[in-house]
């Protein structure tokens, strides 16, 4: 048995023992290994971004955003797909935000805990992991082949085929909304769940109804978390190609170059152009597409999504700063 005190050198009581030296070396080595893996993740990402923006540089300008694509996208800009993506995002939010938020409020604040609630929770989480192409097929079946004929039977004039609604903004928005519904429900439930239960109980003890409690305490203190979830869903809606592939997006649609028609180019029953779809087609379907056009579109789409995600991060930081308990 070694005497612990005798192990300390008398000249310097703080000198490292061999064991401590080995531990320190191991800690340093492990830190470098972790750093290596982190670099492995970051370096390709940076290289990809640099490559894209380098090759896109010749076309990047405000005009590139403001002009319509010309000659199958080989010339001109990105206005028509950009504005289509904007309306797709807005349209899908109009459906997904109220449905998702109210469903999450019901599940979190009203529904009794029990196996039904648990099964619904697990189902919603699993749905969030379903590939977007599956949602696309669901959208095709439910909205394009199911809902549109019903609408046309009611509203369209059989004698005038141009009054018929086609797969377009409405059906694509609904499909993207369905795809994002589980994400919104999950993120909203998380935001609501972050409000301590003791606040609710304090309100109930004062005779406040469930709704009063939600309106005055729960929602004001979870709003920023809910918003963050919505913003992340926006970037997903803007970036995904699969769900709009069969449900309303098209490669080319004539869009006016000026006037209000330029700002509102698509009817809700008309096919529309979208950024993700446009990039997909010009990258691999059109021969002799100039590189700068492909990379220019990619750069714009990436910037758009990075900007949206940064907004979400900024919101999260701001929210952490003004936490009220």
């Amino acid at each position, binding site marked *: 048995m070694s005497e612990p005190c005798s192990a300390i050198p008398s000249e310097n009581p703080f000198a490292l023992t061999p064991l401590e030296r080995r531990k320190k070396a191991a800690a340093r080595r492990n830190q470098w290994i972790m750093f290596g893996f982190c670099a492995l993740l970051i370096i390709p990402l940076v290289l990809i971004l640099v490559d894209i923006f380098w090759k896109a540089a010749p076309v990047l300008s405000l005009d590139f955003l403001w002009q319509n694509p010309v000659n199958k996208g080989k010339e001109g800009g990105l206005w028509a797909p950009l504005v289509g993506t904007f309306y797709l995002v807005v349209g899908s939010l109009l459906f997904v935000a109220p449905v998702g938020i109210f469903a999450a409020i019901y599940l979190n604040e009203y529904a*009794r*805990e*029990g196996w039904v609630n648990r099964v619904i929770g697990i189902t919603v989480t699993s749905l969030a992991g379903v590939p977007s192409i599956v949602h696309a097929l669901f959208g095709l079946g439910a909205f394009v082949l199911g809902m549109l004929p019903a609408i046309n039977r009611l509203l369209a004039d059989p004698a005038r085929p141009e009054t018929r609604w086609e797969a377009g903004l409405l059906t694509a928005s609904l499909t993207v909304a369905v795809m994002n519904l589980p994400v919104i429900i999950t993120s909203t439930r998380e935001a609501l769940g972050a409000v301590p239960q*003791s*606040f609710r*109980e*304090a*309100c*109930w*003890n*004062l*005779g*406040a*109804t469930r709704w*009063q409690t939600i309106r*005055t*305490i729960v929602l*004001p*203190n979870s709003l920023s978390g809910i918003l963050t979830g919505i913003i992340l869903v926006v970037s997903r809606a803007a970036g995904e190609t699969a769900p709009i592939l069969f449900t309303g997006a098209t490669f080319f649609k004539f869009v006016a170059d000026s006037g209000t028609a330029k700002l509102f180019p698509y009817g809700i029953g008309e096919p529309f152009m979208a950024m993700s779809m446009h990039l997909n087609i010009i990258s691999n379907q059109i021969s002799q597409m100039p590189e700068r056009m492909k990379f220019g579109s990619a750069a714009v789409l990436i910037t758009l999504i990075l900007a949206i995600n940064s907004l979400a991060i900024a919101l999260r930081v701001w929210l952490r700063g003004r936490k*009220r*308990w």
Partner: protein
Amino acid sequence: MSASPPHLEFRNLSAYYGTKQVLRDVSFTVPRNSVIGIIGPANSGKTTLLKTINRTLDFIPGGRFTGEVLLGGESVTAMRDPNALRRRIGMVFPLPVGLPLSVYENVAYAPRRMGVTDKGELDGIVERCLRQSVLWDEVKDRLNLLGTRLSGGQQQRLTLARALSLSPEILCLDEFSIAIDPVTTMRIEEVLKELRRSMTIVLVTNLVQQARRLADNTLFLWRGETVELSPTEVAFSDTPRDRRTYDYVNGIFG
């Protein structure tokens, strides 16, 4: 003789969480404007007993009770609006809860939900309740501070102020002084002696001496059963009805 019914009456009250029984056949009455002290070790069902009065037991998954709880002769389970019932009963639970609102809005919360919008009236309620909970002097200059930023003891008094904001007819205090310093506790106890003129007080406490100071009657609950229910002088005398009460009060229980 047709005496008015006791303010609060428990008849054969048994309470359960799922299959676990936490109160067994508890019966007692609380006369109007009296103070009942409820003492007993942890897990005796004291808090559950309070939750049967304003039916917040409903909010706990699996929580339910049998028997009857009568408020002024009327069964609480027969009342159609449990929120109206809850407004008649002030509740202070041991964990201090400052709502994430200003101190002012914490106290004004319940009156506002009742439709009080007049600034002068709200100001009056806020000042009265904060004075009654002995918090006024500490917060009168910073009523806009978030309630959650107060210290634990201040939040507990804020909870008390909130409970008083609707002038309840029954005030239930569950370990209200757990985070409050002894000097302030004594001042609140003085206020409680005033308040009992207008309300009936149910005082759950681990400080047996607090029950002795304040309560007219003392109930000793142990493992969900009534061990002793006597006038406080009897419960704290050398010869209470049950030997276990003497042991508990004198710290030789177990």
